[in-house]
């Protein structure tokens, strides 16, 4: 070619560049494939029986793109056909999250420049070191710029077999980057509501902060759910993310749960980072587990009534109810009028209690909270108090002490007027006792209620209460039924004491719930509180028949013990236990609380330290923990190198943490710092986007 034409070519190229952001390419049209494909592996050497990630890497010519599993308005995702030695298995393709590709009036979902589609390969255990493992296959894909070309190519890779697997330093970073771009399960529940024209997706992530969220996009896994080309209107506020989407062409696609990927761009110190979450949004009207049953108010009331009836049989309610029934048995001679009064008082107590519960729920819901039945159990304080209550009731049934002299009306005062107040509160107590329990039919009814206007919601809750009150109410109103009750006798004491055990079990369960919600400190406090409650019950029981002076002293001591138990609960909770419940389930290294002095101390003891500066509202921190920091491999490396893992939680601002961030030139999280042992070595700051490899490298370098 003549050199003379070069300036002209350059001019043309410039012109093309000026015309568009992603022009360039098509000059190579016809000169070969637009996508070069190769197979890369995170390991250079495989151990027998080992599993490892490989990636089919597409290097895409500038200006061209390939497609995600849901290609959007047009296009087609890559498919592969493996040709593997016997005994080797390849898992399904795992796709990094896509980007939006507008083409004319349409929008496709896919990739440009480069994408690595992952597969997990499992090697047979029968291999021996020195063998070679040959992986090959054929990939087919569609690549489009303005025009589309189907392409395909073979790929192959031969790996060594060794006693211990070894990473491939050249390919591991690309695999790690791809794994980071694969959506992680969303830690926040998603819900959606539809109109004929729109789908509103809500993600309950109250900890997110609007100023950190740059932009949010939802990629549905299925075609037809939403209009791909329509704008997505996102807002981030105190309740989380709300996305207003335009409904897609397939009407029934938005009837079941909606699967997809939520990509959130987060502002970090150094710029924007995209994080992807796999989310399954359920219809707002449905309980989170079932599909989306559409029911009417009448059906909901019926189900609630039925659910309330069944609640009577639950271990937390049955003992309370039985006590009332036993009282009726013991005083069958008290006359029908007295029985009727007590039945009504009990029902009134239940209904009042349910009314209060529903009211609380409605008020919180009006405040934007995503709550349902049992929301009160989300508060560790309420859980602690309920555990005390159940334990105290169980002790009463065991005969350790007596409630108010006559156990909620079990004594002689049934016919007496003051007994009615006691009965009312027994009803209220039965409703409170019912809260940790759920019964069949209840879920649907309550799920319906929380999406309805206040009056309808209240009606459903009161139907639930009426169902709960009904057995005792009927028993007390219908003399014929009462006559069928067995005769009083010694069996009543047996039954009463036996019924203590469901209550002990409920208390034990509540304590277990608390241990998950609030950690070991709260658990210790609650157990201490239970000991105090037992002490108070014992004192009260021992001194009730003593001389007045002793009785008063006993009561005072018992009251003090109860007060101490009550004070212990909140005390434990105000102690800064940071670990959010979501992180509790991970398998990573155990983290201790960070403080500057702790770092100095540990290093002086000759221990290296890894500090994770994080916050519950930091999306990137969350993803880093899920994909890298909390992996078993990292925990193993920490243990091997004797690294102490400290966590500095900036969820609530702290001057101490802010200062520490400042010393690294940062004013936000995430920040990951590795301190070598000793007092002199300079700390290493890891990138804000973590991979297992980055952490391992830093740890191995200690």
């Amino acid at each position, binding site marked *: 070619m003549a050199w003379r034409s070069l300036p002209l070519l350059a001019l043309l190229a410039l012109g*093309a560049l000026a*015309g*568009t*952001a*992603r*022009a360039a390419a*098509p*000059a190579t*049209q*016809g000169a070969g*494939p637009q996508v070069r494909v190769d197979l890369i592996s995170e390991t250079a050497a495989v151990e027998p029986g080992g599993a490892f990630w490989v990636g089919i890497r597409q290097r895409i010519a500038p*200006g061209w793109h390939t497609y995600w599993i*849901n290609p959007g*308005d*047009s*296009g*087609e*995702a890559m*498919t592969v*056909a493996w040709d593997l030695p016997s005994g080797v298995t390849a898992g399904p393709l795992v796709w990094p999250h896509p980007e939006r590709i*507008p*083409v*004319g*009036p*349409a*929008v*496709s979902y896919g990739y440009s420049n480069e994408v690595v589609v992952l597969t997990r390969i499992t090697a047979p255990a029968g291999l021996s070191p020195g063998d070679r493992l040959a992986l090959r296959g*054929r990939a*087919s*894909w*569609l690549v*489009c*710029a*303005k*025009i*589309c*070309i*189907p*392409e*395909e190519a073979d790929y192959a890779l031969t790996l060594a077999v060794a006693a211990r697997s070894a990473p491939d330093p050249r390919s591991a970073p690309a695999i790690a980057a791809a794994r980071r771009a694969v959506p992680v399960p969303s830690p926040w529940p998603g819900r959606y509501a539809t109109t004929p024209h729109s789908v509103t997706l809500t993600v309950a992530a109250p900890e997110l902060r609007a100023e950190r969220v740059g932009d949010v996009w939802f990629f549905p*896994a*299925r*075609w*037809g759910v939403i*209009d791909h*080309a*329509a*704008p997505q209107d996102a807002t981030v506020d105190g309740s989380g993310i709300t996305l207003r989407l*335009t409904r897609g*062409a*397939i*009407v029934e*696609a938005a009837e079941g749960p909606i*699967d997809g990927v939520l990509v959130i761009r987060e502002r970090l110190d150094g710029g924007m980072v995209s994080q992807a979450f796999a989310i399954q949004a359920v219809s707002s009207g449905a309980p989170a587990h079932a599909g989306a049953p559409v029911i009417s108010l009448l059906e909901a009331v019926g189900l609630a009534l039925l659910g309330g009836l069944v609640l009577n049989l639950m271990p937390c309610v049955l003992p309370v109810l039985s006590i009332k029934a036993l009282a009726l048995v013991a005083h069958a001679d008290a006359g029908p009028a007295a029985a009727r009064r007590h039945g009504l008082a009990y029902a009134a107590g239940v209904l009042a209690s349910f009314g209060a519960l529903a009211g609380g729920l409605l008020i919180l819901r009006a405040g934007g909270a995503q709550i349902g039945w049992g929301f009160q159990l989300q508060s560790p304080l309420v859980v602690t108090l309920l555990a005390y209550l159940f334990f105290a009731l169980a002790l009463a049934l065991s005969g350790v002490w007596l409630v108010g002299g006559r156990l909620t009306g079990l004594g002689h005062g049934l016919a007496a007027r003051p007994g009615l107040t006691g009965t009312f509160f027994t009803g209220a107590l039965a409703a409170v006792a019912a809260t940790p329990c759920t019964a069949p039919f209840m879920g649907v009814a309550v799920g319906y209620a929380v999406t309805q206007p206040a009056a309808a919601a209240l009606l459903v809750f009161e139907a639930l209460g009426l169902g709960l009150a009904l057995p005792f109410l009927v028993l007390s109103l219908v003399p014929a039924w009462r006559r069928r009750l067995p005769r009083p006798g010694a069996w009543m004491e047996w039954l009463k004491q036996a019924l203590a055990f469901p209550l002990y079990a409920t208390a034990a369960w509540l304590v277990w719930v608390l241990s998950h919600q609030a950690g070991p400190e709260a658990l210790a406090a609650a157990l201490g509180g239970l000991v105090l409650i037992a002490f108070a019950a014992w004192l009260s029981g021992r001194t009730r028949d003593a001389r007045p002076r002793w009785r008063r002293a006993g009561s005072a001591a018992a009251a003090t013990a109860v007060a101490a138990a009550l004070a212990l609960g909140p005390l434990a909770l105000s102690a800064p236990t940071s670990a959010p419940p979501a992180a509790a389930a991970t398998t990573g290294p155990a983290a201790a609380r960070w403080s500057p002095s702790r770092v100095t101390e540990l290093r002086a003891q000759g221990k290296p330290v890894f500090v994770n500066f994080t916050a519950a509202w930091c999306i990137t921190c969350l993803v880093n923990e899920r994909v890298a920091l909390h992996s078993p491999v990292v925990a193993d490396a920490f243990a091997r190198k004797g690294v102490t893992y400290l966590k500095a939680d900036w969820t609530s601002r702290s001057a101490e943490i802010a200062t520490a961030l400042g010393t690294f030139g940062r004013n936000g999280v995430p920040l990951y710092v590795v301190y070598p042992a000793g007092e002199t070595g300079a700390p290493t700051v890891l990138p804000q986007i973590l991979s297992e490899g980055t952490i391992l490298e830093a740890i191995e370098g200690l």
Partner: protein
Amino acid sequence: MTPEPLSRRDFLVRTGSAAALIGAIDGLARALPAEAAAAKVGEAAPAFTSTSTSGAAVSLAEHRGKLVILEWTNHDCPYVRKHYDTGNMQALQRETTGAGVVWLTIISSAPGEQGHVKPAQADELTASRKAAPTAVLLDPKGEVGKMYGATNTPHMYLVDKAGVLVYAGAIDDRPTSRRGDVQGANNYVRAALQSVAAGQPVKTPVTRAYGCTVKYS
């Protein structure tokens, strides 16, 4: 989880049925806001008048009382070629027009874009491929295409005798460019015609159209 047309994606695309002209610059392409008057299955098909290769004005309204099939095409798109090179599209054209159905092939490629043709070229393609549409309409400004939300080639629509849009989407359930997949595929257009003939609602009225993007300006 995946809808029906997506569920059988296990295929091998044949290599390099290379396309012809280079599309200019897709950076110019803008995502247009969804039009309010866009076609919707189950509602009246939007009225349009376009120009056929003979220069005659052809409107949807003039075919009221007959079934009308709309086919968006681009003769250089590998997915269109899958159905023309195998004779699949022509067979369906003959079968339907023989039964009194009106078949309008619509080309919405803008000037300079892949698939854009002059009237004479379009007629020549019809002759050389032994195609049998009622008429080929030229829509270089993409007006009809955007009105119907046509995103792909091929993209198929069926309008019933009352002028209601009863099907929109793919030609069949094999979203590949492999010619071998024509055999044994479930042809959605044929199935829709059968439902309409039996006086029943179309079983799958909307599917994901597959193919190349329509080359709007």
